[in-house]
């Protein structure tokens, strides 16, 4: 039994790191803008397709493509917040949720129209290289994803703690009016947050691509996991999202082991519903950065 | 009619209301006064069920209220208004008041008819079909009062219904409140406009830093050195004499 459980836990941790990366972006946006970005999963899916096309057309390895995709999605996120989410919602909370829902409908079905619903994967030479970790063998790309996700989380933390931008973001998160009076451009800061959050999913997409598949619906599955992670970790808490992401990866792997593939997902939703009902503030104290 | 005894509410380390007791007799108008941050609104929230006291009891006509939900307290005949008025912005004045009238009138027609009567009581009969969001501050305050009144309370808690009104509007609303009392509704009010307190209430409690520090007729209280020192501060007594004279003029 243990021979199965330990590899499942290790594999779960690697998946969990990617969940955490997706969730970091979402929780940053929530923590500062106080909006739930429903289009987050759709942006992940879009980034997967961009990395896929770069691979098929230009032969770019997903890891090489990562900086390009991240830069493109950072800009896309910045512009989306500044010129779509903010303008179209008139700043009303309920409408923001609906605007991001509309964006997700447009992006998901746009991808369905452009790429059809066929499942696609990339071919990379190292896809089946294994690394021995204790009693288990883990695919190399999963180890890379794990390490890279933690590094990016660390970078994000450094930005939040030690840069002017980080200070501005934290100030706006705590007290928007006050920050505005201190000369911080709130709209710009909001858009930067949205950009960074979107850049996080772009990075996650490039790390996922070597071991994962792409369909226009893939974002939907991820967005639900990301919501669960964010709620579990405490809305707006970066550290919480990291821990919760890893935890959920393990929960999913173990549920999959004991209940089978489809029912395994129930573990995540059960965790989601139970957390929302009993600990809506998350397992840990909610705070930004 | 209403008795609060030893009521205490803590928010973390801050004691907002500390061992406060007060009593409201049926048919009276009682004022709860005190400086900003004294805990007056917290006291209202404790009485009306919006907060649960850490200690102490609240009894209304023989029923324990502490720990009871606001809507159940309202059904017993105790309704409050909010200092920061909360009209149902998307509805007309008539529909707003009808929301309250529905508590005792199941039928839509009855509730709407009752709403028109209540509106007349508070002088809003000409604004019935205006959207609530288009009202002036004074209009919103009146609407808040009307909506509460529509639940047919026996005791009405008014949280600063005159704050933000200009003197002529204050002068208009004072007789309205007195008429409400004369129709059989007991009133407990929080008020900063001393002119109103002096002319309306027979009895007042002074709350300072969460404690009831004095109790008596408003006329006696303004001469009470404890009150003047703790609450009104230096020079305030003179200002009060002036406003008293003003109230006498209006009366």
């Amino acid at each position, binding site marked *: 039994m243990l021979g199965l459980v330990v590899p499942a836990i290790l594999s779960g941790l690697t998946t969990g790191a990617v969940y955490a990366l997706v969730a970091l972006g979402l929780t940053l946006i929530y923590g500062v803008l*106080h909006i*739930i970005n429903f289009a987050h999963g759709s942006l992940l899916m879009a980034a997967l397709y961009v990395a896929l096309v770069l691979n098929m057309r230009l032969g770019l390895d997903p890891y090489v493509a990562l900086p390009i995709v991240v830069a493109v999605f950072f800009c896309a996120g910045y512009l989306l917040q500044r010129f*779509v989410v903010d303008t*179209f*919602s008139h700043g*009303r*909370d*309920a*409408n923001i*949720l*609906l*605007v991001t*829902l*509309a964006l997700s*409908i*447009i992006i*998901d*079905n*746009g*991808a*369905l*129209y452009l790429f*059809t619903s066929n499942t696609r994967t990339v071919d990379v030479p190292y896809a089946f290289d294994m690394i021995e970790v204790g009693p288990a063998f883990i695919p190399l790309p999963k180890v890379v994803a794990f390490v890279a996700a933690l590094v990016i989380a660390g970078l994000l933390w450094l930005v939040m703690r030690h840069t002017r931008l980080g200070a501005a973001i934290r100030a706006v998160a705590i007290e928007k009016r006050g920050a505005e009076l201190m000369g911080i451009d709130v709209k710009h800061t909001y858009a930067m947050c949205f950009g960074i959050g979107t850049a996080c999913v772009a990075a996650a997409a490039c790390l996922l691509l070597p071991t994962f598949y792409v369909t226009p619906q893939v974002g939907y599955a991820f967005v*639900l996991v990301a*919501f669960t992670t964010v*709620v579990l970790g405490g809305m707006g808490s970066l550290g919480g999202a990291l821990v919760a992401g890893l935890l959920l990866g393990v929960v999913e792997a173990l549920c999959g082991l004991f209940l089978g593939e*489809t029912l395994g*997902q*129930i573990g995540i*939703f*059960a965790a*989601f*519903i139970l957390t*929302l*009902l*009993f600990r*809506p503030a998350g397992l840990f104290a909610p705070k930004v950065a | 009619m209403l008795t609060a005894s030893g009521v205490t509410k803590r928010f973390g380390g801050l004691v907002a209301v500390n061992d406060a007791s007060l009593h409201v007799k049926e048919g009276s108008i009682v004022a709860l006064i005190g400086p900003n941050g004294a805990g007056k609104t917290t006291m209202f929230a404790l009485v*009306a*069920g*919006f907060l649960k006291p850490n200690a102490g009891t609240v009894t209304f006509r023989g029923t324990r209220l502490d720990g009871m939900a*606001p*809507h159940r307290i*309202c059904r017993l005949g105790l*309704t409050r208004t*909010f200092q920061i008025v909360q*009209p*149902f*912005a*998307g509805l007309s004045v*008539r*529909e707003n008041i009808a*929301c*309250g009238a*529905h*508590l005792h009138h199941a039928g*839509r027609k009855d509730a709407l008819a009752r709403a028109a009567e209540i509106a007349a009581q508070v002088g809003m009969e000409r604004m019935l079909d205006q*959207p609530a*969001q288009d009202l002036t501050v004074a209009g919103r305050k009146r609407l808040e009062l009307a*909506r*509460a009144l529509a639940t047919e309370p026996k005791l009405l808690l008014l949280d600063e219904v005159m704050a933000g009104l200009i003197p002529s509007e204050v002068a208009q609303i004072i007789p309205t409140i007195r008429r409400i009392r004369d129709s059989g509704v007991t009133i407990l009010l929080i008020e900063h406009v001393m002119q109103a307190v002096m002319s309306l209430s027979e009895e007042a409690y002074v709350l300072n830093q969460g404690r009831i520090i004095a109790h008596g007729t408003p006329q006696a209280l303004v001469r009470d050195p404890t009150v003047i020192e703790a609450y009104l501060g230096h020079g305030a007594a003179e200002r009060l004499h002036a406003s008293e004279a003003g109230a006498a003029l209006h009366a």
Partner: protein
Amino acid sequence: MKRFGPGESVAAILLALAALSPFVLPSQAWIGFAVNAVLISVLAIAWNVTGGFCGQMSFGHAALYGTGAYAAAMLQIRLGLNPYLAAASGVAAGAAMGGLIGALAFRYGLRGSYFALVTLAFAEVLRILASSFEITGAGSGLTLPFKPGLADLQFPDRYAAYLFVLALCIAALAVSAAVKGSRLGSNMIAVRENEEAAGAIGIDAFRVKVIAMTISGAIAGAAGVAYLQIQLFVDAPIAYGSLISVEALLGPIIGGAGTLLGPIIGTIVLHIVGEVVKNGVGGAPGLNLVFYGIVLLLILRFLPNGLMGLAGRLRRPAPAAAAARTAEAR
């Protein structure tokens, strides 16, 4: 009190003409389109009870719709129950699921985005469960045996099916109108506008919200049953898929949340846009939904009170904001 302004009357007349159009323009494609649009209108009316009147925006109305369809299908196939009894049970099952989700979510004070997310999660859990167990037909779904005839609540042709959904839609509209014009409706609107103030005037917000979810569940369940009886088939993605949840809310938001006719107007406008796009590009999948998203964006930007808000402008210059103004959970 004035019930209908000129805007509402125009909308009602347009709807009546649209309802009659399948008899005037008898084509199979048109009537198939009409059956679908009217069926989704019923679902939209259901969503409007919670999302529009009561201000609780659900992202998971498929949970209620699917439960109605599955309950009716399972009772007929597994227990051989009479289709009418099974249909009634489907409606009851939708109501029960609505009440259950509402009671759980509202008991723990979820509102705004949190409520939207938890309803979505419930629909997902039900979708996975329905696609995993033998009793719900697992991955292959449930198929009703074809027995056309009123005795089995099945329809020999599309006209009969259309008459059925039209009657159901009128019934749902009547229920929704009755709710809106009652004490319950007034309480729901008070809760939508300001829950704290509603409590202060004696309204039990929890109870009102759970009742709203229950009524909404019954109507959504009825829509699910109608789908089953017309298509004779149900599976997990059809019943509990996110598309159903999204369609349930698009109509009311586009037509005007909280208005009586808005959900129907919105649904029909949306379906016409989708149909035009589909015909324009030759049935490519996805593109009609892209336009759904674009219509939603444009409505939010330029008509935040929906198309009925536009109708309301015919009456007075500043229409009252009746959009679902859900307070964001902190």
